[in-house]
Structures are given as C-alpha cells and as structure tokens.
C-alpha cells in the first residue's frame, strides 16, 4: 500500500498536547479491528442465545452457517457468497462515496432499481452491434442511477430539502415507477410474473471461466473499488471531497464549491448504485424482475457496511464481504436447520450496534483504510 497523507489519521483525540507517535496510529487501527472482532463475537453469542430460545441448537446452526457461506460441493457456497458480496459491496461503495464527502445518500435502493431497469430496457430495445450492447447497457444503468441521485442533490441545493430526507423518500416513487413501467409497458406476458423479457445474450455479463457461477461483474466491482480508492487518496477531487466531509465550513472557506462537489459526489454515488443494478440484471437474472433487486436489501446492507467501515473503500469491501457471508450462510443454515435466514439481518444489525457503541464510532470521522 502506498503511503498517503492520511494513512495515520486517527479518531480525533481532542485535548492531546503532545503529538501522537506512529505506534499509537497502528495501535488505533488494531484497536478498531479488535473492536470489530469482539463485537462480532458478542453478536454471535447473542445470536446463539436467540437461536437457543427459539428451540434450535446454536452450534448446529452456526456450523451450518459457516458451511453455507464458504463450502458446499466444489465451494459452490463460496461462489454464492462472492456473488452476493458484489451488490452489497457495490452499494456500500455507492453510499461511501457520498458519505465521505459529507452527503447522506439513503436513496441507494431507488437508484439501484432505476439503474437495473434502465440497463434491461437499453439491452432490449436499443439497437446496437453486439460487442457494444453490454457496455452500453451498463452505462445506461449508471446514468439512470446517477441522474436520479443528482435530482436529490438539486432538491438540496436549489430548494434546501435535506438530502437525508429527500434521498430516503425518493426511494418509494422510484420503486413504484419501475413496477409500473414493467407491469404496464414492458412486461413479458408469457411468464406469470412482473418482469421484462430476457435480454439478448450479447448483453449478458459473461461468466468467468472455470465452470463456476462467478461472473465478470466481479471485475466491474473491483474496478469500482480500485477507482474509489484511487480517487480518495490520489486525486485533487478526492482531497476536496475528504475535506468537505471532515469540515464543510473549512472547505467552503478554502474556496471549494460545496455545490459542485455535492452534485459530483451524488452523481458518482448514484452511478455506482445504477451500475450495481445493471450487474444484477445483466449477470444474474438476465432480465429486470420486479422486487428482485430490493428484496435482498442490498442497498441497506451496503449502507451499513459503509457506515461501519468509516467509508474507506477497502473497509467497506471487507465489511460487505462479511455481511454477504452471513447472509449466504444463513440461507444454507435455514435449509439444514430450519432456523430462519432473517437471523443474518438480525446478527448484522446487532454487530453494527455493538461496534458503534464500543468505539463510540462517529460515522465518517475515521479516515483510515
């Protein structure tokens, strides 16, 4: 890892007169990792108690959880975990980009849905030569998500409607609109469900070689991840976003236009969310299925990962992967032990709460990772 300006920035320890030596910085990172591990442990214990209360054996349940997350014949479960991690981490990165610059984007779900639908419609109805179809569809998804998020930014900067509220509320019309469009205009009548036709093969995101279910969406995600890391540590824009997130008054005073930054951050955030939608549609489902993008709660899980990890890209990826493992594992756990898979969500929330309380984590103030 290249060294950066901020690689030893720690949580503010106000009142310290003496400068902090390097050891303390490492100690602080280690402290956060320990807090994370400890919280996860306590969370698992609490989860075990819950499982026990409902009449199941916690040990069996957890064993099935781990198996369901990582193993299975030919590691098929691990593949599922990774595939699930793609949208979660992606949505986490989307939230993190905005959050790091000081903007609350809670509208990931709406942007995700519009992006997915846009990519499906582009793949189905835009006449393009085969090699261009997939990239164009993904691009359309990104654009849809980005524009929708920018609309919320517009409401903030022109009409002073707080982003926290507007992004939240805009989720609902977005989902309703997508349902409406699918149901009344683009529906594949043949299947009994509310979904579009399958996109042409040329538009599908291909599987990776190796005979598994892993798909090339993984590469798209990794590029986004590396791009986000590069942006935040190595570019002027990233610097400005970091400063705006840490102290917007300072950024304004220094000549940074919070408005320009806000539009950029929100557009980027929405575009990533839209891309995730496109990946889900083009790689996993092959069509836009109403509800399929929102039922698994990717946007919210991703948001939690972002808030937890202090919005540093690699931290988000790690947290997202962890949550994906929990969820995939819980699905397998339900198959074998009948413990409802919603336990994963419960565990996630409990762990988050524990972490937030143990470190007194003020979301967004940590800038390591």
């Amino acid at each position, binding site marked *: 890892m290249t060294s950066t300006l901020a690689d030893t920035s720690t949580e503010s320890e106000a009142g310290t007169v003496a400068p902090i030596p390097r050891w303390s910085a490492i100690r602080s990172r280690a402290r956060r990792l320990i807090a994370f591990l400890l919280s996860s442990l306590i969370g698992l214990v609490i989860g075990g108690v*819950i499982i026990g209360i*409902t*009449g199941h054996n916690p040990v069996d349940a957890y064993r099935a959880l781990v198996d369901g997350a990582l193993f299975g014949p030919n590691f098929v479960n691990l593949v599922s975990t990774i595939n699930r991690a793609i949208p979660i981490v992606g949505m986490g990165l989307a939230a993190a980009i905005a959050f790091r*610059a*000081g*903007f*609350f984007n809670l509208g990931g779900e709406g942007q995700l849905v519009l992006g997915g639908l846009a990519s499906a419609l582009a793949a189905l109805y835009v006449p393009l030569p085969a090699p261009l179809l997939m990239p164009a569809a993904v691009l359309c998804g990104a654009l849809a998500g980005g524009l929708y998020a920018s609309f919320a930014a517009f*409401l*903030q*900067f022109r*009409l*002073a*409607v*707080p*982003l*926290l*509220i*507007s992004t*939240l*509320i*805009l989720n*609902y*019309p977005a989902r*309703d*609109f997508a*349902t*409406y469009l699918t*149901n*009344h205009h683009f529906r594949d009548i043949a299947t009994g469900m509310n979904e579009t036709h399958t996109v042409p093969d040329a538009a599908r995101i291909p599987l990776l070689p190796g005979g598994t279910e892993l798909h090339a969406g993984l590469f798209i995600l990794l590029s986004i991840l590396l791009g986000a890391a590069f942006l935040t540590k190595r570019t002027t824009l990233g610097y400005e976003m970091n400063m*705006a997130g840490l102290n*917007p*008054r300072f950024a*304004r*005073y220094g000549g940074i236009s*919070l*408005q320009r930054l*806000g539009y950029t951050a929100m557009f980027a955030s929405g575009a990533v969310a839209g891309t995730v939608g496109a990946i889900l549609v083009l790689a996993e489902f092959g069509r836009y299925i109403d509800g399929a993008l929102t039922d698994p*709660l990717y946007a*919210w*899980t991703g948001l*939690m990962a972002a*808030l937890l990890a202090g919005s540093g890209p690699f931290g988000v990826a790690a947290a997202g992967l962890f949550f994906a493992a929990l969820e995939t594992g819980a699905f397998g756990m339900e198959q074998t032990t009948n*413990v*409802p898979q*919603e*336990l*994963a*969500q*419960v565990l*996630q*929330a*409990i762990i*988050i*709460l524990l972490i*937030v*309380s143990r470190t*007194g*984590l*003020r*979301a967004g103030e940590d800038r390591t990772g």
Partner: protein
Amino acid sequence: MSELHSIFNDTLLNSTVRSVAPILLAGLGGLLCARVGVFNVALEGLMLIGAFFAVVGSYYSGHAMVGVVTAIAAGALFATVLAVLAVSLGGNEVVIGIALNLLATGLTVFLMRTMFSVQGEFQDDRIKGFPALSLGPVGNIPILGPIVSGHTWIVYCSWLLVIATYVLLFRMPLGLRMRGVGELPQAAASLGVSVRKMQYTALILSGALCGLAGAQLSLSLRLFTENMSAGRGWIAVVAVMLGQANPFGVLGASALFGFADAVGFNLQGNLPSELTGAIPYVATLMALAIYQARRRATRSAGTPLEGS
C-alpha cells in the same frame, strides 16, 4: 365531475384520519426527541416492533388491550437500546437509528417465522382488534360527523396526545427542561438539569408512542405483514421537520400526508395503483420543498446535511 366526486368524497376524509394516526403518533415521539436534541430516525423500526408485538400480545391473551400494552412496552424497550447506545455511549444516533430499523425488520420476520411458522403475513382469529367506535349523536353531524366518527380509540387518543404533548412541552417543568436541553445542553447542565435523563425520557416516550402507532396499524386490521410500517416512520421524521417540532405543526404535516395517501387510494380506479401509491411521497417532498423555500435562510456555512 362525477369522477371528482368519486375521489373526493366522505370516505376520503375518513380514511385520511385513519392514515394520519400512526404517522401522527410517531411524529409526536419524534418531536420530543428533536426537542431534546436527539435526531431519532428509528421511528420506522419502533413502529414495526409495536405492530408486531401488538399482534403477539393480542394473540396470546385474547385481548386487544394486552396487545396495546405489549406494543407500548416493546417500543419503549427498543427505544431504550437507542438511548443507551446514543446517549450514554455516545454513538452516532443516525447510524444507530438506521441499524435499529434493520434490526426491527429482520427481527420481526424472524420471530414471526419461529413463533407462528408463517411467512409474509400473520393472520389468525385469535388476534383481537379494536372496533370502530361510533360516536353516537356526534356521528350524525353533517359533514364533520362521518369524518370524525368510526375510528378506533387509538385514533381519538392520538388527538388528545397532541394537546397533551403541547401542554407537556410548553406548560410543564419537564417540557421546559427538555427544550433547554435541546437548545443548549451545557447551559442546562450548569443549572442542574440532567441532559442524559431528559434525553432518555424523550426517547423512551417516543418508543411508547411509536409502539402505540404500530398497534393501531396491526390491530385495526387484525394482522401483521412483513414491513408493515412501509415507510410511515420516515414520513413521521419528515413531519417533525415540516412541523418544526411543534405538536400542532406535526399534526398538520401528518394530515397532509394522510390526505395525499387517501387521495391516492381513491384514485386507484382511475390510475394504476403503482403510481397512486407514489402520490403521498411526492406530495410530501413538494410540501417540504415549498416549506424550505419559504424559510429561505441566508447562505450560512452549515453542513451539507443541513443544506447550504
């Protein structure tokens, strides 16, 4: 013309009043928290918890009132978690609030499946609900009668609670201290008022109110659905903002949403249901935009979260 009448008729306002109640109750809770300086975004999850545990209580006891008490207790308990983590341990209340919302969603489904072995929706004859109360002669008053009569006691209670909240905040010592705590906690502390205690009080009260709101949701239909609160808690958060943390303001804002919701419902004959469902949200956003435009603060160096 008859189409307009099919939309704007008596039942419209009656259903408005019904839709308003849970939002109003949650909004009252939210405004108390706002007054002590805590931004409570867990109203959604608290309401959901209330809805679920109301059904649980009613189911096992056979009495709707027990369901209500269970709901209030569960909401208060859930809110205590928020209080401990945010007030005593100093965590970020928005992050904790969102996490609690997720916890509520997962927990209610988990419990529904483990306790009742059903998925999606839990309905049973053993769940006792509340009858619609006829207000007798009041119900016969022209125009006003049909709107006001025929609701559960919780709805009527919510109106009384608006007044009660007002009296608490502006006429009672507790309310004065709460307002001071929210405005300038150091000053309050210097005068011997415990900031922590005030914030706990507000949070627990909000949990109880949201529990009651949830009870209204589930017991009036005598069932529990996954994600029953359906964003109403978030609308309540907006209502607190629009209503400037004032009980009557929150009432107005909630009424606005409820009205838009009911209009949307009535429009379902004429417009696709997906679009009518979006009406209240769009209306709320527009109301917020108009409200902010009128407030038009000078360009101050606030955080982006507060608008700049």
